[in-house]
């Protein structure tokens, strides 16, 4: 089952490698990982998406994360109401007018933004849940050539009062 784990940790050198090391050391998989300082610059917020076999292994994973000295808080998002978003930048080769129009149309439908244009290339920015980004890629692939794709990995936050704070 897919899980999204939020981690609040000290914004110190080495903290990220301890988290990543823990995952490889304990045989856990990471599907995506995002990390950045929060409004409090001494803290970083990390979102990890992972596949776990059962609840017991998820619980063990969260306990192991919490055991790291740098980690302040750990919480799982999918068990409650939450918002998750991923950002994608995708560069598409568009040689004909027709192709350009098709890309523009798709981008509008998916509420993407064209952030860069050259004579033959459109770069589109798109955000949403992972499956929306996947769907956009398959749609575009039917008509145009994808040059490159970069995705941020999932960022998540709980809805309502629930919050992860230092």
């Amino acid at each position, binding site marked *: 089952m897919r899980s999204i784990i939020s981690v609040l*940790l*000290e914004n110190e*050198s*080495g903290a990220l*490698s*301890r988290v990543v*090391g823990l995952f490889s*050391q304990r045989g856990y998989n990471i599907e995506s990982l995002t990390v950045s300082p929060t409004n409090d610059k001494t803290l970083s917020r990390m979102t990890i998406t992972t596949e776990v076999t059962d609840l*017991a292994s998820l*619980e*063990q994973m969260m*306990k*192991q994360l*919490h*055991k790291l*000295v*740098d*980690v*302040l808080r750990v919480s799982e998002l999918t068990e409650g109401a939450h918002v998750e978003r991923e950002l994608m930048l995708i560069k598409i080769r568009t040689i004909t007018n027709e192709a350009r129009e098709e890309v523009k149309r798709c981008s509008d439908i998916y509420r993407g933004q064209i952030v860069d244009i050259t004579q033959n290339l459109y770069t589109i920015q798109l955000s949403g849940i992972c499956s929306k980004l996947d769907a956009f890629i398959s749609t575009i692939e039917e008509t145009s050539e994808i040059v490159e794709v970069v995705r941020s990995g999932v960022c998540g936050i709980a809805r309502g009062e629930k919050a992860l704070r*230092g």
Partner: protein
Amino acid sequence: MEMLSGAEMVVRSLQDEGIEHIFGYPGGSVLDIYDAIFQSSDIEHFLVRHEQAAVHMADAYSRTTGKVGTVLVTAGPGATNCITGIATAYMDSIPLVVLSGQVPTNWIGDDAFQETDMIGVSRPVVKHSFLCRTAQEIPIAIKKAFYLASTGRPGPVVVDLPKDVQNPLLKFPYEYPESVELRSYSPTLRGHKGQIKRALAALLGAKKPVLYVGGGAVISNASKQVTELAEKLNLPVTNTLMGLGAFSGTHKQNIGMLGMHGTYEANLSMHNADLIFAVGARFDDRVTNNVEKFCPNAKVMHIDIDPTSISKNIHVDLPIVGSVEVVLQQMLDLIAETQASNDGEKIAHWWKQIEEWRAKECLAYQPSNSHIKPQQVIEELYKVTNGDAIIASDVGQHQMFAANYYPFKEPRQWINSGGLGTMGFGLPAAIGCKIARPDKPVCCVTGDGSIQMNIQELSTCMQYNIPIVIVLLNNRSLGMVKQWQKMFYGGRQSHSYMDSVPDFVKLAEAYNHIGIKVDKIEELQPALERAFELKERVVFLDVAIDPEEHVYPMQIKFGSMEDMYLSKTEKTDA
């Protein structure tokens, strides 16, 4: 404020932390610190012959006293040589602070001479680590290191010290913090009251309870509480390999060690129990055997200071996070308050069953006229030392013989590498024990494989005159490997036979120690007596034992806890 260089700050911080002994080896990246040590008379430094041994010594020093062990080594190979020692301490939750030199900060990442990313290399086997990028960071990093190492679930902490940060010419204001606080770290010591109440109720209601006591009881100094609880409720107690001595091995309620080489009565009690109360133990695979078949009728309760240990391998019905000592005291207070007691009759019935299992005398062995049996050596060692010696063991068959045939009366009397199973641990560990407890007889029980993994430390013994007794159970082979090959690999002894063991007596003599060869059973007792009478000397007993002897009982792989080989010809019914 006092002005000190980085190097001086390291030494002063250790002094202010109350460190009396340090184990280490100098080199380019720590010369400034060594110079500062030279000029300080408060810390006694022991020069080892290999950095791995320094860590084992500090580790055993800690296991013997409960204090944090301290190590100082240089960068690169000095640091990487420590890794086995650090991993050993990590697996057994032993508090250590390892100070390693590092190349100057502006060279880090340049593949400089003797550069290793010590923080990276050690990361999977430390509780935490610090890289000091400025001299001013040193006192706080060292304070935090000792705090982290010794609190919560203890463990090793590395402090990496680049050479430029130690510069003796640059002085900075020095102040050692009184205390430290980390917002991201606050181990739970006291147990949840409701859980303790429920646990006690379960204990009182149980018909077939077992108290399963691990290394956590030793580390948290909970021996008194364990004993009091066991006696109050007349509980059978089994110790893990790491827990030996936490509950006295001579106590009538002690049913012996459990697990792979545990006693028949301990393993059967576990398997047939209706309640298992795990106290500072972690359901290691060497204890549980096949987890699918683990104790089918038992409700499991577990006290541990580390939440990750709870329900990791075995589902726990009633977890209590906290220090074993604190939680058990809470439970004892509750018993006193409520004047609780259990049903003596039910427990008596359970004891009757256990006594039947005990009557099997699973540790009995056949003495022989032609060979000294390893079990005899340990039994004789027990008699000669009156059961009072600190035993530092290596890893292998001899370790299991020592664990099963030397009943440890006190905690911190049995020093061994339980989790990592590090061959080569024994000799440096014995040295660390003797430095920590010069008043106690210290004996290294070892094998001809293990002793050769850190034998160079005989030289350290010579330099500092550390009088330990080494009892080598010499079967001219890697006994445990050979036992497995005989039992499970069609007897093919692939590389487990060492036809070229040295003359250990001459080797001991080369280091100015006393070597005694023991070939015959009648020589054994006088040799052991002489060894412990010579209190000022290292005595190395090379005891030729029966090379065909196996360790029994031994759990049958993939079976339950009660499935065991009892001898070469006998096994349990399952």
